[in-house]
């Protein structure tokens, strides 16, 4: 069974995000980028399924400019067999991404499409769902446990009230949540080997997709800074202060 895993290059989770002074977006120049942590979980799950013998080939895919090759190399070091770089320097909106990824699933005839439940940069949480919809196949989102049973996948999802277990027919889209697994440390020899694994470069046009611009970002602003607190000495003072603010 072939698994296609989509991996996105995002600003690293350790980096404190800075909004550009003109509000046109966030600062990305000179800032550390890495693979979206939820996609790392998807990658790890694919590798575990391959180690179990369920998955036979893992293909990593990403969309974006030349620097995204680094993210693919990381995926290859995780254990992807090969990678596809859908190269485009422009802005990629979720629908465009979903269309391109759906085209890649078709092209590869993959049985399983794995990706993080969302990317930590725009938190859109749409791509997996839209890929399933565009391909008219089943989807199981927010997976915290995945078992493949022949032509079916049994997926446990975390929902507000507890756990929900879904059974979906393959091919299917599975988006991965935080508790699914803990991604492994990349080993130096695997990173070395990854440099030699093949990456195929295609364009959006090759996949028959035109970049859409349905959503326009009008403004990016940092969260308002918290105003200074006051120290109260007694409970009476606290009650007074709360009353003064109309909270009691």
């Amino acid at each position: 069974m072939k698994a296609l895993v989509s991996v996105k290059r995002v600003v690293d989770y350790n980096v404190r995000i800075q909004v550009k002074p003109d509000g046109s977006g966030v600062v990305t120049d000179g800032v550390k980028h890495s693979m979206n942590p939820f996609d790392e979980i998807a990658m790890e799950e694919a590798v575990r399924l391959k180690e179990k013998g369920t998955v036979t080939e893992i293909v990593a895919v990403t969309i974006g400019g030349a620097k995204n090759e680094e993210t693919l190399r990381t995926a290859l070091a995780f254990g992807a067999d090969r990678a596809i770089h859908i190269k485009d320097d422009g802005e990629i909106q979720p629908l465009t991404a979903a269309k391109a990824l759906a085209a890649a699933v078709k092209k590869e005839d993959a049985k399983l499409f794995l990706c993080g439940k969302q990317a930590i940069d725009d938190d859109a949480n749409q791509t997996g769902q839209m890929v399933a919809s565009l391909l008219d196949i089943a989807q199981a989102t927010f997976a915290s446990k995945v078992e493949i049973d022949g032509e079916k996948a049994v997926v446990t999802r975390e929902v507000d009230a507890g756990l929900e277990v879904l059974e979906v027919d393959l091919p299917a889209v599975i988006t991965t949540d935080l508790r699914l697994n803990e991604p492994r440390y990349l080993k130096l020899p695997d990173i070395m080997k990854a440099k030699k694994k093949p990456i195929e470069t295609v364009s959006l046009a090759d996949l028959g997709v035109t970049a859409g611009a349905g959503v326009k970002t009008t403004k990016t602003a940092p969260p308002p800074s918290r105003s200074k607190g006051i120290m109260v000495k007694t409970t009476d003072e606290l009650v007074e202060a709360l009353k003064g603010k109309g909270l009691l």
Partner: protein
Amino acid sequence: MSVERDVMEYDVVVVGAGPAGLSAACRLKQKAAEAGQELSVCVVEKGSEVGAHILSGAVFEPRALNELFPDWKEKGAPLKTPVKRDDIYFFTSAEKGFKMPGLFVPKTMHNEGNYIISLANLCRWLGQQAEDLGCEIYPGFAAQTAIIEDGVVKGITVGDMGVTREGEHKPDYTPGMELRAKYTIFAEGCRGHIGKQLIAQYGLDKNADPQHYGIGLKEIWTVDPSKFEPGLVVHGAGWPLDLVGTSALGGSFLYHLEDNTVYVGLIVDLSYSNPYLSPFDEFQRFKQHPVIRQYLEGGTRVAYGARAICKGGLNSMPDMAFPGGVLAGCDLGTMNFAKIKGSHTAMKSGMIAAEAVAEALIAGADGSARLDGYATKFKASWLYDELYRSRNFGPIMHKFGSLIGGAINWIEQNIFGGKFPWTFHDLKPDHKTLKPAAESQKIDYPKPDGKISFDKLSSVFLSSTNHEEDQPVHLQLKDPSIPIAQNLPMYDEPAQRYCPAGVYEVVGEGSDKRFQINAQNCVHCKTCDIKDPAQNINWVAPEGGGGPNYANM
């Protein structure tokens, strides 16, 4: 505990992807290509990416870069802001200061032809050049120890991943690899933790003065466009440190880059004597000086970081080679303190090291003999000449202070061309300069206003520092009892103050007092390893990828 380790063999392993290490890597490949030979070169870097642990002023002199890549402009090196104006101030108090007339500026402080840069970004660019030349660069992997067999350095062992705080193996435990090489170039930067061991093991410093250090603290600000003057360089001496005295020395800088970005920083000599001094708080109050504040007011602070520098210069430089390896850059101590520049000298030392290593390898050397060609080439280079001319700057400052020392330095640089017929020495190591707390005056630092000055924790937050929490503490105490039993009564445990990242705290009351190490805050500046009066703190590399994530520093 013996573990099975994977092994990779290279001709050369370089430890550290800074200006020295990357220049060495590039030069090795260039020399191999000239000779029509293959040399395999591997660079390991403890930061999560190239540039993540690089922090510098930085006014950059392009001399070494011109030699390494004469076509750096075409190749897009990030040198974008030429220095347009040089101001030097003597700050006499929190409110006052005077600008030094151009005539009195020592030659070493002239910056025509230099650029204001982000050294982190230059290193990112150098890393790309090195990869294009065929070097393998592995960020996120920390060299932990040198492999030494029969007295010969045979490479390095990379740190293990997946070890708990108590030293147990986690399920995802991954032993670090052995990277073996004919020659290993150590370019870890100031107070490299392996370099320190090698200097001791091979007695490399037996003919050198003690190394001297400073801690540099830096912030990046986005300022009001009306106050922004691209290319303006402001250097300062004096307040909040000493101008006439010699108990707390140092200097300050403020550079205007592009896009309303301003770098501001303070370098505090680690030879200071008052254990109550806090370099971080000195920096915060320094920014309130009207000369500095005028630029920052209304702006936003976007980044913070700190790093120790080696400033002993030529007098403090250890022997540079030992069997199987060499030291380069600030692992060796090549900074020119009179110019307050270390990037071009680090690059040049890496290049000279690489030339010596490449020549030896091309001639068929196996690395077991000491590489004496390195020192010979160094002595014949402009780097030696430059460091020779600046050799007296540090010792004169330590002896006479900024104002008088500055005047003597002016005479030496502008009249004698850096070639005084005598050499000054400073033989007291920085960890021995503290006076007992009982003989020192407490310093009452002003509270941060949250606009120009800030507290430590919100500052560390801006360095994007992160470490895996469950790992062995990488700040090792040789004797865990010393902080509370000795340092606290004697010096009021100065680690609480000299650490710019709030790693060290004394918590609890009375007899319950204990020394707490918040290792995950560590910005890898190495100050504790240098300044601890008992020399009891040993900085070792944490799990690879940990530490600050500096952008544009």
